[in-house]
């Protein structure tokens, strides 16, 4: 049931990305291009998403468990560390080069095309390489070595 719900909500998320135009990298880059042909649309996308998401969070705070019985898995860290800042900076650099963040990159697989596939494979390679390095460090075998 949670898998079905997640699939439906991922689909709703994908519809939202396409409807808002965030699947068009040019629209995203034009938002970031404040000194050029500025297109403020992205601010309204994030504003709308933020407002509804904030209501959802407020409701969740008054609930003991999620509707399907799970506990809420919400990040609790509050510290600002180099990983957070460095990672966000690298992400921003890549986002500014092409105009795709992870959601729209995956949503655009519906469109296909060489450019999207190159980007998505590189994104998965980067994410996978990073997570395997971390997983390697954290594994018991690596600790013993």
């Amino acid at each position, binding site marked *: 049931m949670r898998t079905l719900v997640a699939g439906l909500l*991922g689909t709703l998320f994908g519809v939202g990305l*396409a409807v*808002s*135009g965030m699947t068009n990298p040019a629209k995203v880059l034009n938002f970031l291009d404040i000194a050029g042909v500025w297109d403020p649309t992205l601010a309204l996308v994030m504003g709308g998403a933020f407002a509804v998401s904030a209501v959802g969070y407020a409701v969740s705070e008054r609930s003991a468990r999620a509707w399907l019985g799970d506990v809420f898995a919400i990040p609790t860290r509050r510290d600002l560390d180099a990983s957070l800042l460095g990672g966000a900076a690298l992400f921003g650099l890549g986002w500014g080069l092409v105009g795709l963040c992870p959601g729209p990159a995956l949503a655009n697989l519906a469109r296909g095309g060489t450019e999207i596939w190159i980007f998505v494979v590189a994104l998965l390679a980067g994410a996978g390489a990073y997570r395997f390095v971390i997983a390697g460090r954290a594994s018991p075998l690596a600790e013993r070595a």
Partner: protein
Amino acid sequence: METAFTPLAGLTGGIMIGLASALLLLANGRIAGISGILGRGFFDRAQAPGERPWRLAFLAGLPLGAWLSMLATGDAMGFAITPSPALLVAGGLLVGVGTQLGSGCTSGHGVCGMARGSRRSIVATATFMATAALTVFVARHVLGAA
């Protein structure tokens, strides 16, 4: 490519994204951060039972939703991307590594994290917005790319 300011479409799509995030939290108790779902869903070998299926289902929904939307509206928003393989590979790698190292992207930090007032997410969002805008400024106005 110049794009028109489309406030109504932006707000409508944003509300859908927010609704998906709010309902994933309320129904499943999970945060709709795409990079976290992607990184854990694909690469975390120690996932609790049942975690991988919902993650992969959510990710599969993204192109399905975009496809349904394009079917209904005929790609109203258009699409233009750099043809440069070097830029695409560099951008993909940076987004992949950066979102895992920084524990989130536009959805996890920018929408969900900010919506619950997370200090880490507010700082991360300000950081990636600033570096992305700086990158575009240098590419377009200093180096003169299209």
